[in-house]
């Protein structure tokens, strides 16, 4: 596709309106696509120009809110993050994310995803409850300690990993790669002391041991998070804890800001001659 040429791309979108009581079916639209146009822009074009009843989620249009997860040509993508050209096809089949209930058209019910996420207590837990609720100062954390889990903090909760997971396909009660990866993110965080509590939650039926390393979650994650790696590292932690190996992680200490500030540097010389 050159700069000015636009192509007619067929969008076959799955429609489903519960109020009309129909079965899900594919409806075809033709969208003039230019270079650089994303699938989301195509959907917005359809909504604005062809059929305003087309329903989908969108918010930031820049792959940070996680709203627009959909299945494009049998693979889950963020619609705003996927250019029509990169798919290399003239017909795009667009369906809602699998393994989640459909509310209408392309909108799925993300409540189970959020419930599982909340279930693993995704916040820093300290034994000193007073410090946790009313912090007096910051927690010290070295840069290397942050790098050990930083990759897993970029989750936008789009639910694409749950759609890709084979265990989530058949097991409604499975926590899912999103919740398990976030569980690792908090257990590996040196500021956190809640690993015992979270272990009880995931070391159960439909918990971490139902992950069998299919790796589809990491393959499809639109933010490069690698939930599969997080889950296997979490398994390693659990096994080390269970058989008694592994170093005990020292929780981060509370660090007050220094009482004396460093000496102020002198103001630098102007690099451009000032007019008098």
């Amino acid at each position, binding site marked *: 596709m050159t700069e000015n040429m636009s192509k007619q791309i067929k969008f076959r979108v799955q429609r489903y309106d519960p109020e009309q009581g129909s079965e899900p079916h594919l409806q075809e639209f033709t969208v003039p696509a230019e270079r650089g146009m994303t699938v989301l822009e195509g959907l917005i074009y359809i909504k604005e120009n062809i059929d305003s009843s087309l329903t989908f989620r969108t918010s930031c249009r820049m792959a940070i809110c996680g709203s627009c997860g959909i299945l494009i040509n049998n693979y889950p993508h963020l619609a705003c993050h996927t250019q029509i050209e990169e798919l290399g096809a003239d017909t795009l089949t667009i369906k809602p994310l699998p393994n989640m209930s459909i509310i209408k058209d392309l909108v799925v019910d993300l409540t189970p995803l959020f419930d599982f996420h909340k279930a693993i207590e995704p916040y820093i837990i300290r034994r000193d409850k007073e410090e946790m609720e009313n912090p007096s100062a910051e927690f010290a954390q070295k840069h290397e300690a942050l790098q050990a889990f930083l990759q897993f903090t970029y989750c936008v909760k789009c639910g694409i990993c749950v759609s890709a997971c084979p*265990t989530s396909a058949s*097991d*409604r009660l499975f926590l899912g790669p999103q919740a398990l990866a976030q569980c690792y993110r908090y257990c590996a965080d040196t500021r956190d002391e809640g690993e015992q509590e979270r272990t009880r939650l995931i*070391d159960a*039926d439909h918990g971490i*041991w*139902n992950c069998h390393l299919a790796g589809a979650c990491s393959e499809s994650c639109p933010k490069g998070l690698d939930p599969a790696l997080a889950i296997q590292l979490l398994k390693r932690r*659990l*096994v080390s804890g*269970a058989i008694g190996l592994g170093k005990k992680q020292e929780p981060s200490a509370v660090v007050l800001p220094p009482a004396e500030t460093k000496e102020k540097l002198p103001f630098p010389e102007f690099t451009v001659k000032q007019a008098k």
Partner: protein
Amino acid sequence: MRKTHLWFLQLISGALIAVLLGIHMGLMHLDDILIILGIDAVEPTSWDSMISRAMQVTWVALYIALLIVALYHALYGLRGVIIELTSSAAAKRAVTWIIIAFGLTAFIAGTYVPIALLSS
């Protein structure tokens, strides 16, 4: 026993099966390769060969050990597969107990016969 221990046992039993079943299959199936390697292999499923192994304590011990790890590994795996298709707590408990009962039955049957033959 925590689920972590049960899962870790699955790994250990898997590794043990690789060794024990490797020996078993090497004897049973690779007879032509054993001949090439110079070991004189009699037809292992013939009555005489089978009885001679059934009379040796090392073989009986090996088979019983293989039975234990194979039953654990297979039934833990089967339970995992069925649980992923089951939602109700009552059904899950039923599945677990049926699998444990089946495992114990298979273990008893599988150890009774070799020991009976050994002592006969």
